[in-house]
């Protein structure tokens, strides 16, 4: 109950005062429901800053066999063996993400994997909101009546529109920071000239 009140206030505060947390998850495959979480990265955004000095990246020690996606994110079996138990990683994350608004590119995928993993370990956590940089970008481009090509909404393609460099994709922490930068670019552009609260910004990325 108190959480709901806090969340209500949170979302009605100016967006720059809200607690944003950019995340990225690497999994064993591309099926959010079936695959295991291999790595999780998160970084706090306190607009206009990205608190990279508090960024975290955790590899999960899973006993699942790696499928071909290991090639995509370059995690080796020994990296995974050196990882932490899922419970520990999630406990740390939940603490950091308490009362936060999640920011992710294609956020639905990350939240499904996350909820799946939480359920598996019997933990509970709900963000105050979820902002998807991919959806926000699609909304913005559609408003400009641009025709969208299939690959024009990748994280790299979206970033390029804001003049950001290429980045080494498919590493959870690089992706989380890249996503945080994209979020700030979208948010500052959206909020220019008025002072939206977190809620109206969230509508952009819903």
């Amino acid at each position, binding site marked *: 109950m108190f959480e709901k009140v806090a969340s209500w206030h949170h979302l009605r505060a100016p967006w720059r005062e809200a607690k944003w947390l950019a995340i990225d998850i690497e999994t064993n495959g591309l099926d959010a429901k079936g695959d295991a979480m291999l790595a999780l990265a998160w970084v706090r955004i306190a607009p206009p800053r*990205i608190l990279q000095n508090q*960024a975290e990246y955790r590899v999960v020690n899973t006993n699942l066999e790696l499928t071909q996606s290991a090639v995509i994110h370059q995690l080796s079996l020994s990296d995974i063996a050196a990882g932490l138990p899922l419970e520990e990683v999630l406990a740390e994350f939940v603490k950091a993400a308490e009362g936060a608004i999640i920011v992710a590119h294609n956020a639905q995928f990350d939240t499904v994997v996350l909820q799946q993993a939480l359920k598996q370990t019997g933990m509970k956590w709900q963000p105050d909101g979820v902002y998807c940089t991919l959806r926000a970008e699609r909304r913005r481009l559609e408003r400009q009546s641009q025709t969208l090509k299939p690959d024009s909404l990748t994280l790299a393609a979206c970033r390029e529109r804001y003049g950001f460099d290429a980045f080494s994709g498919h590493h959870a922490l690089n992706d989380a920071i890249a996503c945080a930068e994209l979020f700030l670019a979208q948010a500052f552009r959206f909020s220019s000239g008025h002072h939206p609260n977190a809620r109206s910004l969230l509508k952009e990325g819903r």
Partner: protein
Amino acid sequence: MVSDTNFYGSQGGFGMASISADTREFLANTPPFDSLSAELLQYAAEQMQAMYVCHDNRQDIMQPDSHQLYLVRSGAYDLVDKENQHLDRLEPGDLFGFPSLLTGRKITNKLQVIADGIIWIWPEGAFNELRRQSQAFERYFVNAHGQRLLAEQGKTQGADWSEKKIASVIDRKPIQISSTASIQSAAQLMSAERVSCLLVVDDQQLRGILTDRDLRNRVVAVGVSFDVSVAAVMTPMPAIIYARDSLFDALTVMGQANIHHLPVLDDNEIPIGVLTNTDLMQQQRSEPVLLINALFKANSREALVAEAAKIPDYLRSFASRVKDIGIVGRLLTSLTDGITRKLIRLYEQEQGSAPCTYVWLAFGSQARGDQTLGSDQDNALLLPDEITDGQRQWFAEVSVYVCEGLADCGIRLCPGNIMAMNPDLQKNRLEWREKFLKWIRSPTPKAIMHCMIFFDSRPVAGSHQLYRQHREEIAKLAKQDMFLANIARHIGELNVPLGLFNHFRTKSEGDFEYIDIKKQAVAILNDIVRLYSLAAGVTVPSTPARLEQLKSASSLSDKDNQNLLEAWQFLTGLRLTAQMYRNEDSKIPSNSVDPETLSTMQRRQLKAAFKVIKDAQHGVAFKFGRNM
């Protein structure tokens, strides 16, 4: 020290954050972070925050009292002072904020946003910790703050042995004897001093050299009386070298003349030592020696041309191995000098010796010692006043032989016809004097341009004495206020490619942007140093040597002198590197660079070098232009 738990300091207070590979890589490629150890780089990354900066929130950054170090990660910004005067254009890889960190002064500059982007930020505590832990990091910021970025190259430049001045390897005074002494007393002196050669000196002037070999071949073998004077058996007027020259130059002279002893003179022509080939052997053995020897063993024009054809490839591989690429310019100059002398000698072997004294003059880059592979010929002849028309014919012919020979050896004919084979440039001392006097008295733009070429001269072959007389004469003529003022004005009209906001001004050709390092920077810098040299009567041709002689002896302050030297070293190095590694099908002209292709450090240094030249341009206008 890194294991010390206090090391990570309390200022961060966040413990060890995870570092993204992208962050680490960008930092590792950004000076001075590139000089940090892995542990310190990790520390720097852990202490860093990123900030998105756009027009709406630009006042969030650079708060008056929060001293922080800023690094542009993306976007573009202009740094302006409180009167909104533009100070600098900031682009990815650029650092700012450190002057306030170093001085503790209030921040008064502001940012204007050209393109939104990310700026990385370090708190004062982290900055100080990095400075405390890394000398290289500390030195970088102290230099950057003192606008002394060009001094940073010092650490990567080590003088190659062959670049050493001869003065530095001469360790004993020459053993000398008068020309009237007997052969026996000479032999006794050599024996007592345990030397293999004597310099024959009268009134401090070098007359000749006497070696063990001379005693064997010209005395004992022939049966000359030991009472005969040394003058009769010595080698008169031997090849010489100056103490200020490099070991390269010595190698060239010794290899070419096939001699083992080389008298060394100071700037006043007084003998100060003898360089032997043992001295050279004791220096590190190196490949230039082999190349030079091969050139001088060539016993025909064809053989020489065949050896010279190897030079470009050789230089490229040599350049990749030396620490200081500037040495390549010196080596190429030495080789050109050597080829010139060899051609003259080959001609003499076919057609007989020169009928009188003369000087083969080099101008321009060969004179200055900053030749590049693309440099063309700039040479001429200085002849004695008493020369006859018949004697002139010999020079008319040798000059064609040598200039065409040089061209076959890869040193292009001069499109402007500034070559010894041009009859107009085969002049005696009086005629040269007339020519210079005309330029100096009526300094038209064309005359100024000629002066720029002809005042950088050096004798490559022939009589050093004749050259010295000529050079001192024209140095006196040049000290004319009006003439100097005209040169100053000419220099003031040249464009340094640094625009408003400290931004590179590139030329573009199609899709290609470039800066001509030779025309737009090195040449202007050479012009400036030449002007100071003319005013001070300095006659050596190379820009670094001129600066050395201008120290505390002219209107150029020691600090400006040092700045010009460092800028010159940086620019000539950059130009040579660009030329050496130029892609065959590169669309940008040779001697040019595209600033986009440079490293962050090189871009910063290039800007610093342009700044030095711009400032010197203003200095020259102020000091010499007032006499207009």
